[in-house]
Structures are given as structure tokens and as C-alpha cells.
């Protein structure tokens, strides 16, 4: 799962960062000539910069190719189910909530009043995908339901008093 991978990557990075800081703190006494320290550390910094740059290029390419967002201008394929979703304070109006396992559904999401966040959660309360529900605009988000089950739609953009109670159910048979 992407979220778990991201969490582990973050923890590992934080441990490494902490180790660097602890190393410097542990070696903060024992005064040395600054020009020597600068020479040594600035040489490492050039490599560190190069590393960050290379990682950046690779990550950018890997995460943007293919572009991870549904094409907003292309018409849905014939075998894609198009579902209209309208967010309201504080309920979802969804014109079809029952699909079959393996269906690819393209949600056309908008709002009848304020901004909402349309998010699909699985039975283990894991966020699968989302987009914003905004008045006057339609955001398209496509999702393939691999497994049967009861999925939930939660609101991810604060929209007032009952924001947390703005739930809907999607059934995949």
C-alpha cells in the first residue's frame, strides 16, 4: 500500500536525519579550525546536492509518468461507468451506487453549495482515491473496484457543522 510505504520512508528518513544531528551534537566540543571543517563538509555538500537532484529527477519521472490524474477532457470509454456525484451540506447525491467487481467507474464530481472532498474508502477504512467537489466545476476521478464489498464515501474538505457525518455507501457485488 502506498500510504504504508510513505510512512516507512518518512520514519527511515527521520531516523537518518536524527542520526546526523546527534552525530554533530556529540562532536560539537573539541574545537577545530573552521576552515578545515568547511573544506571537508562543503565537499560532502556538493555530493549531497547532486544526490538530492538525481533523486528528484528520478522521483519526478517515476511519479508523473504516466500522469496520475484522470484526463479531464477525454470522454469516458464505452466500458467505463460514468457516475454523477453532487456534494451538499451535508449529504452526497450519487446517481448510481451499485457496481460489479472489476468495474471501472468515472465519477464526475461537483458541489451544490460549498467545497467538499469526495473520497472513497474501502471496508478497512483505507482511503483509495479522492478529488475535490467544487461548485461550478466538475472534477473527474476514475477508480477500478477490484474487490466486492461495502465502500464508503467520506467528505475530506471542511464544509460546516456536519462535515464529519457526510457519509455515503457504495456497494460492489
Amino acid at each position, binding site marked *: 500500500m502506498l500510504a504504508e510505504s510513505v510512512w516507512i520512508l518518512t520514519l527511515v528518513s527521520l531516523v537518518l536525519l536524527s542520526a546526523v544531528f546527534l552525530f554533530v551534537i556529540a562532536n560539537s566540543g573539541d*574545537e577545530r579550525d*573552521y576552515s578545515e571543517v568547511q573544506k571537508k563538509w562543503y565537499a560532502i555538500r556538493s555530493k549531497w546536492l547532486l544526490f*538530492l537532484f538525481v533523486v528528484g529527477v528520478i522521483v519526478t519521472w517515476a511519479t508523473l509518468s504516466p500522469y496520475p490524474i484522470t484526463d479531464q477532457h477525454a470522454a469516458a470509454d464505452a466500458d467505463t461507468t460514468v457516475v454523477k456525484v453532487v456534494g451538499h451540506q451535508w449529504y452526497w447525491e450519487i446517481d448510481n451506487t451499485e457496481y460489479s467487481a472489476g468495474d471501472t467507474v468515472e465519477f464526475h464530481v461537483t458541489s451544490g453549495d460549498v467545497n467538499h472532498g469526495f473520497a472513497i474508502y474501502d471496508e478497512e477504512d483505507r482511503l483509495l482515491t479522492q478529488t475535490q467537489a467544487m461548485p461550478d466545476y466538475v472534477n473527474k476521478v476514475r477508480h477500478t473496484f477490484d474487490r466486492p464489498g461495502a465502500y464508503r464515501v467520506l467528505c475530506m*474538505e471542511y464544509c460546516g457543522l456536519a462535515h464529519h457525518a457526510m457519509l455515503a455507501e457504495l456497494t460492489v457485488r
Partner: protein
Amino acid sequence: MSEAIQYDAAENRAGLTGVKAYLLTSLLVFALMMLAGVVLRAAQGAYINIPPEVFYQIMTLHGAGMVGIAGFAGAGVLWYFLRQYVRLNGKVLWLNYFIFLGGVVLILAAILIGGFAGAWTFLYPLPAQSMGLWSPTAATAYMLGLLVIGTGFLLLYLDIGIALIKRYGGLGRALGVPMMFGAKVDPSHPTTVVAGTMVLIVNFTGIAAGAVVLALCLFNLWQPEYKLDPLLIKNLIYFFGHVFINATIYSGVVAVYELLPKYTGRPWNVSRPFLYAWGAATLMVLAVYPHHLLMDFVMPPWMLVMGQVLSYLSGIPVLAITAYGALTIVYRSGIRWDAASACMLIAMFGWAGGVIPAVIDGTLMVNKVMHNTMWVPGHFHFYLLLGLLPMVIGVCYYLSNNRENGGKPLVDTAALAIYFFGAMGLILAFLAGGADSVPRRWAEHFESWRFLGQLSAVAGGLTLLGFLVITLRNLVKLPQAKIA
């Protein structure tokens, strides 16, 4: 051009009193807002039961209060150090102080009397469509409060801008642009002037955009037939909000540039990499805001890609120049450790650490499962609790301890340790919540999510406890500080 500005004794006294007022007010407001934050997490953990409307009012108060006071505290720190290099007007500092208080009164009235609970981001058209929870008058008071506070900051920046231009002949020179492009690098050009110029450029622009969007939203509140474009307004709000909150930490970092050299005896001079980093940061802070709109798929794709790429790139000056530079200065320096110098290093850790979850969430494909989850408060609490706040606390200790009677009283060491570990616990609980798909800004959590709320409430309580001791110590000592 690096000679210190000469002030007379009365100007120095007035300047120091003004800075103390900023710092002490900030400490008190931070403590109150932390208490509000602990209440929110305790409610999400079902430790306490508060009605949703009260939860969202406290949430709005916590957000607006923290963002506002972070800007205020950052301005106080920047002003204190920058006045060494350019002639700043103490009366303008006080003018901003009282205008800020006026804005705070309006915001408090909007929330506590008018029941406004539109979140600090006042995302259009929510302030005008509360379903009867608050009135247009309450929404007006809230947005006017923000507008008033922004006006005060603009006046302060105007004074700073005039002073920089008078001294350096232009903002480009103050930022070091000629030295970036071939002119001989003057190592005595103050790092604080470079940082202060960057903050001035970005925050003046950001607050001006904020003023425009607030004026538009206020007009819409009372003339509802005058419709606004929700996507345009969202862009303007996030541009303003992103720039303003970023400027707080870029203001506070001058404390690190100024204090670490004093504690290590090593200079922090400008160099080409330093100037490139600040020049790039100036442009990137202005251009990176679309990473807040990654889930608005109708945005032009090039803007979303730019948001992702600049999110990553904007972490590099922090990780490779400022934090790295701080570590280089401290390494084998024989640094004199006390509460102030410890705070400077904690601040560098907090800023660099906060970059990691921020950059990851700024990736489009990750944002699809992290946007508006607890991951988001996780990353910005990292920046603010362990980045900005230690900068502010460190300056308080630096002024309070005064070089002659400085030291490492156990109570300060213990308070800082409790604060640090409490904050780390709170941040990790937020990030764990994000990894577990827990949405942010929910008054009531599913039962399976409550444990993280409880953990956060305890960790937040510890953070508050440490911070209260720090605040009390400085409330007693800071008013007596003599150096300017």
C-alpha cells in the same frame, strides 16, 4: 555596507521594549492556542465530549490564532535582528502591535460571540453558507479581522522595505542579486538582510493577495448576487495562506544566522550558494502554492506538475544550505550550549524534518491518498512546533539570559526536553493518522481512529506543559533583559 546602524539609548530601549512585547504576547497566545489544540485532539480521541459546533469554533480559533501569532512572532524576531543593519522605526512596530490586537478582537468576537466556524482558511463560499450556524455579520467580523491584521503587517513591511532600499539602493541589491550574477561576493553582506528582503518580497505579495480575496469575499457576503469564481478564490486563498505561513519560518531563521555565530565564534557569511538558495526560495515560495490544489483536477496540469516539482525543489535550500550550514558551524566548534543555542539546533532539525513529509505529500500520486488527512497537520506541526517555535523561544532565552548570567538551569533543560519529546509524539501521531487515512478537521472520529487522538492529546499535553514552564520562565526574566 555592513556597519551597524547607530541608535540612541532611548531608541534602543524603545526597540527592545517593543520586541519584548511581541515575544511575550506570542508566548502567551501560543500557550492558549496549544491548549485549544489539545482540546481538539482530546475530543477526537473521545476523552472529552464537545458539541460539533463548539469543536469547529475551537478549530477555527486554533488555526487562525496559530497562523496569526506565528506571523507576529516571526515579525518580532526579524525586526529585532534586522534593525542592526537598517534603520527601522519603533513606532511602526508598535503600530502593527496595536492593529494586530484590533484584528484579534474582531476575530475573537466573530468566533466566540458570533459562532463563526468557517476554518481559518475561510474557503469561499463557506463563510456565506453556514446553514444558519453563524450570521453574515460574524463572517464579516472574522474576515475584517484578518484584513485589519494584514494591513498592520503591510505597514510594518513598508517600513522595512523603505529602510532596505535606503540602505542598499534597492531590494535586488539587498537580496544579493548582483552577487548571484557575477559581482564580487561581499562576505560582510548580512545574512539577515538577505533573509529579511526575501520575507518582505514574498509576504508583501502574499498579504496583498490576501487583502484582495478578503475584500472580494466581504463584498460577496453582503451582495450575494455578485458571484465569485470558486477556483480563482481558492487559488488566491492558498497563495496567501501558503506564503504567509512560510514567511513565518523564513523570518525566524534569522535568529539561527545571528545566534549560532555568537555561540560558536564562527561567522555565517553569505556565499554564492547561500544567495542562490535565498533567490530560489523567493521565487519558489511564490510559485509552489498549487501543491495545495493537487486534488482540484480541473486546474491546468502544468500548474499541478509545477506544484509537485517546486515542492521538492523548495526543500533543497533548507536541507542543503541552511540546516547543513548550521550543522557545519556547530561541528567541532566548542559551542557554548544553553537553552538558546539548543533551541537553534532544534529549530534546524524541525525545519529539515518537516520538509520530509511535506515533500512526500506534495507528490501527486501520494496526495491522492494523503490530501486532507492527518498527514497534513503532521507536517506543518513539525515546521511550527519544532522549527519556528524554537527560533522564537531561543531568542527569548537569548535576551533573558543575557550573556553574563547565562547558563543551563535544570528547569530550562527539562522544560525544553519535555516540549521536544511531547511535540515529536504529537507529530508522529498526526503522521501515523495520515498513513492510516484518518481525515483532518473531523469533530468525531470512528472508533478505530480514536487511539491516535488519545495519543496526541497526551503528547500535546506534554508539549503544553513544557511550553508553559518555558513561558513562565521568560515572563519573569525577559522583562528584565537589558541588551538591545
